[in-house]
């Protein structure tokens, strides 16, 4: 059911939304690049608490794969973007603290990948032939190749089946909650845009003259060069 809704949403976005606003495709690709790069970052941090060099080497290989996906999205952006690529800058948040077992970070990344791959599949099916569709095919092939590998690896790192299920459930709940908060924030954002627009048009009438005079001044008269406290 959720898949069906998401499929419809993606088809609508691709056929109508992206045609109306070509810049939107670029933003979506930037988002994909950010997701992959974020996965790499978490994996690097998770690696620090893996003591077995064999397991570290496997995770290292995983990092290279995610990094290659991030790079692939940058190349595709150049095709659609219309301007020079600059990555999104959302704040990196370490999910687990330093002493948490590494398998928890891997579980978190793994869940993120599974969700992202599901969306990539839906998008791949909705897109016409082109560089983005080709890129998604490659990424999906890679991700599908190591889902089982990750599960086995988590067990080798000391996770029990029950532990994995709980960690995955915890991550899914957190992602659901964050998605919910995003919806709420979008509502607030829309409200803020409306309010600020009204304020701009009403108050701007009385202030633009003073503002223009100020910008024409040329030099800064007030000396603000000292240490300050609130």
């Amino acid at each position, binding site marked *: 059911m959720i898949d069906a809704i998401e499929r419809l949403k993606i088809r609508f976005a691709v056929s109508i939304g992206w045609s109306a606003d070509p810049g939107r495709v670029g933003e979506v690709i930037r988002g994909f690049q950010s997701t992959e*790069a974020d996965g790499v*970052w978490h994996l*690097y941090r998770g*690696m620090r608490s893996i003591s077995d*060099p*064999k397991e*570290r*080497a*496997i995770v*290292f*290989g995983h*990092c*290279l*794969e995610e*990094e*290659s996906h991030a*790079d692939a999205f*940058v*190349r595709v952006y*150049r*095709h659609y973007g*219309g*301007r*020079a*690529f*600059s*990555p999104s*800058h*959302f*704040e*990196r948040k370490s999910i687990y603290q330093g002493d948490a077992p590494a398998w928890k970070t891997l579980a978190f990344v793994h869940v993120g990948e599974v969700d992202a791959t599901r969306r990539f599949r839906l998008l791949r099916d909705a897109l016409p032939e082109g560089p983005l569709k080709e890129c998604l095919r490659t990424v999906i092939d*890679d991700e599908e190749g190591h889902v089982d590998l990750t599960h086995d690896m988590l067990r080798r790192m000391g996770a029990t089946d029950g532990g994995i299920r709980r960690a995955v459930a915890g991550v899914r709940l957190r992602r659901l909650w964050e998605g919910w908060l995003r919806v709420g924030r979008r509502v607030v*954002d829309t409200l*803020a*845009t409306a309010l*600020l*627009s009204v304020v*701009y*048009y009403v108050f*701007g*009438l009385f*202030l*633009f003259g*003073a*503002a*223009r005079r*100020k*910008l024409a*001044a*040329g*030099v*800064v008269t007030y*000396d*603000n*060069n*000292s*240490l*300050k*406290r*609130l």
Partner: protein
Amino acid sequence: MRVLGISYGYHDASACMVVDGKVVAAAAEERFTRQKHDANFPTYAVEYCLKEAGITSSDLDQAVFHEDPHAKFSRVLCSAMAAYPDTRREFVQSMKSWLGRKLWAVNSISARLDISPDRITYLGHHFSHAVQAFMGSGFESAAILVVDAVGDWACSALYHGTWQEGRPQVERLLEVAFPNSLGLVYSAITAYLGFSPNDSEATTMALAAFGKPRFADRMRAVVAGLDDGLYQVDEDYFNFTRFFRGPVTDKFIETFGPARKPTDDLPFNCFEEATAVTADAARLADVAASTQLVLEERVLGLCKKLHSMAPSENLCFAGGVSLNCVSNYRILSESPFKNVYIPPDPGDGGTSVGTALYYAASHGGGAPERHRYSPYLGADFDESADIELIDFIKPERITPYLKPGVTLSGLKWRSRTYPNRAALCAAVADRLMQGQIVGWVQGRSEIGPRALGNRSILIRPDDKALAIRLSKQVKERAALRPYAFSVAERDALATLAIDPAHVRANRWMQYAVPVLESARDKLAAAVHIDGTTRPQVCYPEDNPAYHDLLVAFGERFGLCALLNTSFNASGYPMVTTPVEAMAMFARTEMDVLVLNNTVVSRDVE
């Protein structure tokens, strides 16, 4: 006294720890988050600084922030209103950002560090740059120039710095107000040329060398020089307040021609003869050349003005425009100032250092020499655990993820640890002589945008074909961007056509200087089309390990010089940890990776 300097909010967030007047740690947030120019609160840089000082945030005496959010907000709001009614989108976006977050910077810092707001000080942005420049200079007194995009209200600012009774006094002389900004002009034209603004201004500078300044007169009308050395930007050419409309206006396009799309090819090449240069490509190069020339004229004008107000022998220079190494060399050689100091990280990333030092010295006292600092203040690493995993890396597992165009595959990794630096340098120098590309990672990472021998990729400087391979198969870098070289101090005057008095100023790759004709063959891969380079003169006391490598290589090559470029992939910040270095080594055609005393290679049996 323990003072933490913090900068964040626009680009290049960073943190710096000063204990009893000495910098013990400094780092940019991007080195921990792997997001180039990361502007978010520097959580991980702060964590590193506190750990290096062996304290927690509750032990801090003071945190110092690099701008005055209230003053800056007044400028942001005023700008949005000045272009009424065309700036609704700009107003809405700015207000969401400022009212939601940026205006409450003191609260954010207090909450994140869990310190009382009484322990937080802030200072104006250009003042932060001024103290950044002055505090590290070691000068008893100096004229100080800050040229930036925009801070609170100022774009360019002139100061005079002195020490009185063991405390620094920095007095404002003049501030040129927004929107009269040289930094914004250069960034806008960078965007017009199809490059990424606030990131690729160096590419504009590189492109300028391929053009002729045939638009200089038109550009002088855009950024007019005034008789007293100041300047005036004609805003009709730019959308500084209407930024959703693009960087330049129709008037600029009518004057200089259409903007370049980022995907349009530029046929210029530092190493090979250019393929046919179209009229359009030539025009764009000429626009870059004209912009560069006029920027230099205006900066020199500001130096003249500053010298008239503060007739010192010494100049301290900071702000984003001080990253323009071509203009910097003209200041060094043509301005009225005899001695010039530019801090190793003169942009926003370095303000955390200056503000922390200034606070510490203002309250704890000190002397100019005491506050000097080297750029090697970033995180160190222990490579031993990462070396162990090499035995388990399967080359075939890496092959699918090589960067495009890279053909190395199927070769097993090997590692060898050398017992001492002399043996290491000899082995690495031999490989460099054989034409191998070496990733060199040593000790603490540098602050600032330049690799200075601790996070560097090195090749022999005479091999253009190797430099092309480096550009294509390792750095994925535009062919028009030149490389530069490091040279041991003993061979500086054998390579650089500069005044001997200026050798010491060239320690941190801040000046584009001419290379001696007699040395150009041996340095062909690291000299730009106009015969200049941006050198690092390496002194043994600055970086002993790197100096030893240069000398070891010099014994084989005949000159103690190496092509030195930063150890980062295109679009990423410099590597910090061994694993990040290994990841780039794995996916590119780098031949050798050196992690402290261990050499990792992909050798055929």
